[in-house]
C-alpha cells in the first residue's frame, strides 16, 4: 500500500512481512523507531508467531540472534553506531557460523567525540566481518532490500546487513509502497535452515578449528560472497517481476552511458548527487553517477563495466579511513585494472555535516578542471583545524581537542547542530 510514513516505520512493517520468528534488539538512536515499531506489531499480535526479546546490550542482541538462528528460527535485529561496535565479536561469529541473520544498521557516526548523526563509519568498521552489506538509497529501497535480504541470507546461509542512513532515511517521512503479505510470501519462501540444533539429533555448531581447516572455512565465506555477486542481480530481477519495481542489485548507474566523469557513492546521498548530475548535464557537462548498492560483496566487475570509458571517477564517502583516506575509492580501484582513470576521493558528511548540492557541484567542477586534490574533505573548516594545530604547537596542555574546536567556533554552532555546513561556505539552515 502506498503511504506517507517514517522510514523506520516502513522498515518495521517490511521486516514483519518477512515473518521473523525471533527479534532481539537493544535501542540506539537512530535505529530505535524500527525496533519500537516491531515491538508494537508483536504486542498487538499483528506479527505472530514471533518472540520479541528485550536484551541488555547489543552484544546480547547479536548473541540471542545467533542462538535463535542456530535453533532454526528466522532471526532479526537492528543497531547503529556504538551498538555495532559493542556487538562486534558476535557479528563475526554470526557470519563465521554461517547463520542467515538480517540486521538493519541505521548508519551513524562513531565516537569520540560522541555524535548521534549520520555517516557510514559504523558499517565500515564491520565491512570485513563476513556479512553482506547492502546500502539503501531511499526508504522505498530500504523496505525492498529487507525483503531481498532475508531471501539472500537464507539462500547463502550468510548474514546480511541492510544499511540505511540515520535520520536522513530512518526519520524521514517519504512516500513508500509497503507490499502485501501475499506478495512477500510469493517472493520469500519459508526458511529451511541448512543447520540447526535439535535435542533429538544433536550436532555441534561452533567447533574449534585449527590451522588445518581454518583457512578453508574462511575461504568458503569469500566463495559464498562471490556467489552473491551472481545472486544479488538475479534476486533484484525476481523482485522486479513480483513487485513491479526495481530495487537492489549490485550497482545502479545514472546517466553514465557517455559520461566522462562518474560519481560513485553509497546510500541516500545518491539522490542529491543525481539532482546535481541533471543540473550539470543541462549545462552540457558529460557527467553521470553510480549508486553502489552492494558494498560487500564488492561488485568489481559490474562497477568496472559502468566506469568503463570514464576519464575520472569521484567517490563521495561518508567515512574516513584515518591515515589513508577513502574506503570506497580504495575498493573501487580494483574495478579499474590497467586503466589510467583519475580517481578523486572526497570525504563528506561526517557526523551529519550536510552534503549539499552546491558543495557537490563545486567539487565535481573542481575535479573536471583538474584542481581537486586526489583526497579532499568537502566543506571542511580548514581554518578551524589550522588554529587548533597552532594552539597545539604553541602550548603543551591545550586540553581536549573537541572542546577546543567547539569553543573556537563559538556558541551558535552547538545550537545549530547537524543541519548547517559549519565550514566557510556555511549557509544556515534554520
Amino acid at each position, binding site marked *: 500500500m502506498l*503511504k*506517507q510514513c517514517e522510514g523506520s516505520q516502513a522498515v518495521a512493517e517490511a521486516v514483519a512481512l518477512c515473518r521473523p520468528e525471533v527479534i532481539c534488539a537493544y535501542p540506539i*538512536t537512530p535505529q530505535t523507531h524500527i525496533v519500537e515499531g516491531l515491538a508494537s506489531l508483536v504486542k498487538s499480535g499483528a506479527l505472530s508467531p514471533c518472540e520479541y526479546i528485550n536484551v541488555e546490550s547489543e552484544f546480547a542482541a547479536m548473541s540471542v540472534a545467533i542462538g535463535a538462528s542456530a535453533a532454526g528460527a528466522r532471526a532479526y535485529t537492528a543497531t547503529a553506531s556504538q551498538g555495532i561496535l559493542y556487538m562486534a565479536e558476535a557479528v563475526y561469529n554470526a557470519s563465521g557460523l554461517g547463520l542467515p541473520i538480517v540486521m538493519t544498521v541505521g548508519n551513524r557516526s562513531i565516537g569520540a567525540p560522541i555524535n*548521534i*548523526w549520520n555517516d557510514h563509519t559504523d558499517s565500515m568498521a564491520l565491512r570485513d566481518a563476513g556479512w553482506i552489506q547492502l546500502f539503501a538509497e*531511499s526508504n522505498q529501497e530500504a523496505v525492498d532490500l529487507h525483503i531481498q535480504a532475508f531471501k539472500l541470507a537464507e539462500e547463502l546461509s550468510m548474514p546480511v546487513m541492510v544499511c540505511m*542512513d540515520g*535520520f*536522513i532515511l530512518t*526519520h*524521514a*517521512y*517519504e*512516500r513508500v509502497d509497503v507490499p502485501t503479505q501475499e506478495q512477500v510470501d510469493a517472493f520469500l519462501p519459508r526458511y529451511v535452515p541448512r543447520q540447526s540444533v535439535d535435542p533429538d539429533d544433536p550436532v555441534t555448531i561452533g567447533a574449534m578449528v585449527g590451522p588445518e581447516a581454518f583457512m578453508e572455512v574462511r575461504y568458503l565465506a569469500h566463495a559464498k560472497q562471490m556467489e552473491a555477486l551472481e545472486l544479488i542481480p538475479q534476486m533484484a530481477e525476481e523482485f522486479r517481476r513480483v513487485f513491479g519495481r526495481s530495487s537492489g542489485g549490485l550497482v545502479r548507474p545514472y546517466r553514465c552511458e557517455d559520461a566522462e566523469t562518474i560519481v560513485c557513492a553509497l546510500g*541516500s*546521498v545518491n*539522490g*542529491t548527487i*543525481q*539532482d546535481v548530475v541533471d543540473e550539470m548535464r543541462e549545462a552540457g557537462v558529460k557527467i553521470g553517477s553510480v549508486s553502489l548498492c552492494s558494498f560487500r560483496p564488492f561488485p568489481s566487475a559490474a562497477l568496472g563495466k559502468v566506469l568503463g570509458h570514464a576519464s575520472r571517477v569521484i567517490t563521495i564517502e561518508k567515512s574516513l579511513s584515518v591515515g589513508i583516506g577513502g574506503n570506497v575509492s580504495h575498493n573501487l580501484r580494483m574495478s579499474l585494472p590497467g586503466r589510467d582513470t583519475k580517481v578523486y576521493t572526497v570525504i563528506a558528511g561526517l557526523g*551529519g555535516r*550536510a*552534503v*549539499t*548540492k552546491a558543495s557537490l557541484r563545486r567539487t565535481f567542477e573542481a575535479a573536471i578542471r583538474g584542481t581537486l586534490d586526489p583526497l579532499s574533505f568537502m566543506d571542511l573548516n580548514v581554518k578551524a583545524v589550522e588554529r587548533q594545530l597552532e594552539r597545539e604547537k604553541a602550548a603543551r596542555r591545550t586540553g581536549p581537542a573537541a572542546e577546543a574546536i567547539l569553543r573556537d567556533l563559538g556558541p*551558535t554552532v*552547538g*545550537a*545549530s*547542530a*547537524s*543541519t*548547517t555546513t559549519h565550514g566557510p561556505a556555511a*549557509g*544556515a*539552515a*534554520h
Partner: protein
Amino acid sequence: MSIGGFVEGRWAQAIPSFGSERMGAPVVAFCRLHDREIRAREPVTAPDAVVIQDPTLLHQIKVFDGLSPTGYVVINSGRSADELGIGELVKSLPAGHVLTVPATEIALRHVGRPVPNAVLLAALCALTGELKLESVEAAIRHKFKGDVGERNVAAAREAHAMCARGTAAKGAVTHAQAV
C-alpha cells in the same frame, strides 16, 4: 505537512534533525512538497516558509537565514511582529506574509497540552494556501487516532478560521499600522 501533501497526491519529504534528546532543546525539521519525486536529501537552506514554534529562539539562532524574499513566516506567539522585534523582517517581505498566532494557547484550550504543531500547520496552510484544510485534518487524524486527533483537528480549524479571517496578527497589518 508531508502527510497532507501526500493526501493531495503530491510528493513530499519531511526530515527532522535534533541533537540533545530532551524536551526543550532546539530542534529543526524540514519539509518539501513537489509534483515529482524528491531525490535531494540536503537540508532546506532557502525556505519558502519558516514556522517558529518557540519565539524564544528568534533572537538566539538565525532562524530566517536563506528565507526567500517572497517567503512566509508563521510564529507561535500572541504578540505582534513588532512586539517580537522582527519589524525589519516584516518590511523585507511582501505584505501579509508574516503571521503570529497564539498556537500554544489554542492547543491548551482544545487539547489540554502545550502542543502547538497542528495549530501552526493549519495557520501555515491558511496563510500560504499550500494545502487544503481537509488535507491538514486528514493528516492529523492519520497521525493521532481517536479523541486526541479530533481535539487537534478542532484546534487546527480554529487557527485556520482565525487566519482566514485575518484576526491573527498579520505582520503586514502591524507594519501598516506602524507606518
